[in-house]
């Protein structure tokens, strides 16, 4: 029987087998690479006579990841953090060589500040902060009773970490690399196809709100995921790095296009609900050419190189068609129609830019330079300060305990506490993570005990060391590949095992030291857990979600007040980042998630309209007497989102209505600018009065108190 036959019969008999085998293959490739990198590091560290080969091995254990781009990105930030931390450790030691109290106080402050930085940043930049914090501790704590040693300690530490980083980078990148770039490319294409299909499929005009919310969530996830991947892939692939600014711009265009798309559809939905079916029908008719442009032959439907010229051609079709459709409507519907037509034109041109850029990226030839944009993140400073407080408390309590008790292994405990309070500062379920890690750590130390006192003493030479330590070492990386079911256990196991082995040349066998150190390390992790109970983690808590929602609303305030240059970009990306952060910890189909989505959509629509309106003002040619009321309307909208109340809603509604009146009066005077401003104002008013949006409660309350006699 040929090999192919065996696999098909196996597949028929055990359908889960092929998937299981491929998963196991990836897992074991990772285990083999990790173990190989660890032993190479250990061997080199002994060859170079570094003080603690274990540190270098731990670096490998921490840095290794199944995907090589992740390893390189993590290594990069780890190197930066290590340098910053060692430098700070040196400075601190030279400032307070004799004053232990002051020294520990400033060290606690530094570690706490770094933990705060770690919660503020996403991705591996956060990890760099953690490193900067605990490297300072690692460098200085062992030398605390002998300050003159601190420089050597710092040099050793940096050398060990760098060795670990270099070896793991080389091993993961060169031996059977699992690339991140295909993943990025695949998900980018998937998101592109989904967006195009969705835009084409909604030619009919109305999309139910639930459908729109689902699509919105998907757009948000896509934007954030692409940015996350991009920031790691650039370390792995020089070609991706050369395209990095284009990928950012692509993401930006994707976000703008999806916002315009949603605004247009919300407007059509509202017109239909409000009994303006004929206007909605005209807008749907205007949408038809875009839908057509997006539907070439089925095989080419997701090919940007085909779509881009079609959209370009469509842009020329839209204005005459709009003029014809407008002429068929009654004059009182013109404003509504113009608003929708403006949105559709904007959507069409944004789609053209988006597809053209995607086409040029797929083509592979980079011509000229592109506009540099940044993906801004939404950060919560108060949330970060909670983890600063927690880390500071952990550190200072341990320091006080250490100083007053004269515990000789106190530095070990402090070290572990530092590492883990930093590592888990940004985690959503730190208690679970700490308990899992602690369990893994203890298991690793038990394994380490047997290896140290039964297996190692009998061996001689590096080969025997490998033979003695390998069986227990394999468990750690293998558990790491099971991270989705047992988060943290694998990492804890590897750390505990390698730390307690403390491989040295020559090896030291001292059961008393071993047990004392083990106890101190467990106490250190335990203290971290205790302080997570006292000062609970912020990430994912309802408190933080409320704050993030408020921050999301404040985005509109920002849109109304912040300086215009670059505002649109940061508005779009921060919005997505915030929504993504809140959504991650919100259970779907609850009142909370519905309210979040309603606000997200409303912030998106109004914020964008406000920014467009401010751009209209900034453009020259608008009469001075119009600028004042339009500014008032912009500020009133900002005030409404700052404090959503019926009273503010009424004020905003009045201000927008007044601005519309005044702009209409001046329409003849300067038609071009006033026309644009008018459509944006109308969009704002219709968004404000949308009784299915987040504004609904304020509208009812506002109408109830405003004019009882009008009802």
């Amino acid at each position, binding site marked *: 029987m040929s090999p192919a036959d065996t696999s098909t019969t196996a597949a028929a008999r055990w359908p889960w087998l092929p998937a299981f085998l491929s998963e196991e293959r990836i897992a074991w490739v990772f285990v083999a690479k990790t173990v190989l990198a660890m032993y190479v590091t250990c061997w080199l560290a002994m060859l170079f006579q570094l003080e603690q080969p274990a540190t270098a091995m731990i670096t490998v254990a921490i840095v290794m990841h199944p995907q090589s781009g992740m390893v390189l990105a993590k290594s990069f930030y780890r190197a930066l953090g290590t340098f910053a931390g060692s430098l700070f450790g040196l400075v601190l030691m030279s400032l307070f060589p004799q004053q232990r109290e002051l020294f520990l106080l400033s060290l606690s402050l530094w570690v706490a500040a770094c933990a705060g930085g770690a919660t503020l940043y996403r991705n591996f930049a956060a990890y760099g902060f953690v490193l900067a914090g605990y490297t300072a501790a690692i460098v200085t704590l062992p030398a605390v009773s002998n300050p003159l040693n601190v420089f050597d300690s710092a040099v050793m530490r940096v050398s060990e970490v760098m060795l670990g980083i270099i070896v793991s980078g*080389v091993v993961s990148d060169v031996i059977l690399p699992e690339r991140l770039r295909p993943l990025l490319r695949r998900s980018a294409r998937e998101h592109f196809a989904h967006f195009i299909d969705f835009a084409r499929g909604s030619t009919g005009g109305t999309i139910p709100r639930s459908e729109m919310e689902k699509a919105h969530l998907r757009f948000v996830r896509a934007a954030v995921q692409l940015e996350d991947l991009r920031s790691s892939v650039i370390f792995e692939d*020089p*070609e991706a790095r*050369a395209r990095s600014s284009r990928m950012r711009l692509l993401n930006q265009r994707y976000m703008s296009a999806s916002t315009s798309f949603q605004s247009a559809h919300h407007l059509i939905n509202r017109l239909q609900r409000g009994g303006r079916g004929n206007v909605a029908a005209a807008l749907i008719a205007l949408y038809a050419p875009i839908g057509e442009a997006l539907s070439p032959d089925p095989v080419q439907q997701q090919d940007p190189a085909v779509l881009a010229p079609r959209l370009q051609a469509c842009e020329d079709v839209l204005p005459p068609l709009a003029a014809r459709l407008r002429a068929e409507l009654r004059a009182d519907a013109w404003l509504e129609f113009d608003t929708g037509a403006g949105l559709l034109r904007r959507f069409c041109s944004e789609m053209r830019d988006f597809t053209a850029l995607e086409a040029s990226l797929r083509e592979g030839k980079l011509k000229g330079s592109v506009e540099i944009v940044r993906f801004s993140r939404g950060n919560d400073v108060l949330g970060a300060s909670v983890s600063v407080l927690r880390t500071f408390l952990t550190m200072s309590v341990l320091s006080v305990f250490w100083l007053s008790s004269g515990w000789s292994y106190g530095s070990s405990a402090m070290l572990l506490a530092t590492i883990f309070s930093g590592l888990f500062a940004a985690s959503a379920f730190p208690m679970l993570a700490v308990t899992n890690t602690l369990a893994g750590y203890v298991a690793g130390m038990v394994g380490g005990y047997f290896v140290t006192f039964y297996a190692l003493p009998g061996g001689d030479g590096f080969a025997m060391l490998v033979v003695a330590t390998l069986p227990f070492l394999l468990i750690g990386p293998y558990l790491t590949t099971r991270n989705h079911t047992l988060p943290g256990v694998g990492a804890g196991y590897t750390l505990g095992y390698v730390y307690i082995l403390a491989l040295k040349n020559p090896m030291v066998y001292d059961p008393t030291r071993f047990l004392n150190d083990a106890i101190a390390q467990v106490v250190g992790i335990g203290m971290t857990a205790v302080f997570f109970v006292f000062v609970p983690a912020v990430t994912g808590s309802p408190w933080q979600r409320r704050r993030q929602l408020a921050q999301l609303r404040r985005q509109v305030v920002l849109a109304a007040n912040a300086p215009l240059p670059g505002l649109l970009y940061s508005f779009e990306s921060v919005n997505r980042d915030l929504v993504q952060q809140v959504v991650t910890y919100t259970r779907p189909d609850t009142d909370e998630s519905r309210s979040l989505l309603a606000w997200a959509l409303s912030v998106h629509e109004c914020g964008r309209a406000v920014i467009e309106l401010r751009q209209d003002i900034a453009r020259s040619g608008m009469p001075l007497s119009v600028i004042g009321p339009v500014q008032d309307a912009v500020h009133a909208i900002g005030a409404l989102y700052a404090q959503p109340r019926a009273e503010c809603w009424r004020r905003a509604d009045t201000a927008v209505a007044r601005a519309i009146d005044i702009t209409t009066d001046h329409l003849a005077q300067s038609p071009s600018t006033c026309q644009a401003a008018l459509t944006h104002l109308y969009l704002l008013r219709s968004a404000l009065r949308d009784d299915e949006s987040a504004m609904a409660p304020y509208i009812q309350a506002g109408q109830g108190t405003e004019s009882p006699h009008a009802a």
Partner: protein
Amino acid sequence: MLHDLIPNEIALADALVPGLLLVFFGSLLALWAVDTLVGRFGLYRFVWHPPLFRLALFVCMFGAAGLLLFP
């Protein structure tokens, strides 16, 4: 001679740093520059194993620079 350019040990803020370390960082910078250029034109597509090629390139650059400066 070339090896007079960089002494064996360099004092950075009174800390002695091996001169070879600077060469190492210099080679990393050079590799970064080459990567940028190659990435711009997508030339790594013509290479069988790009990471291995990059590593080999780095070893060559570092080795050549090191041997030139510290014979």
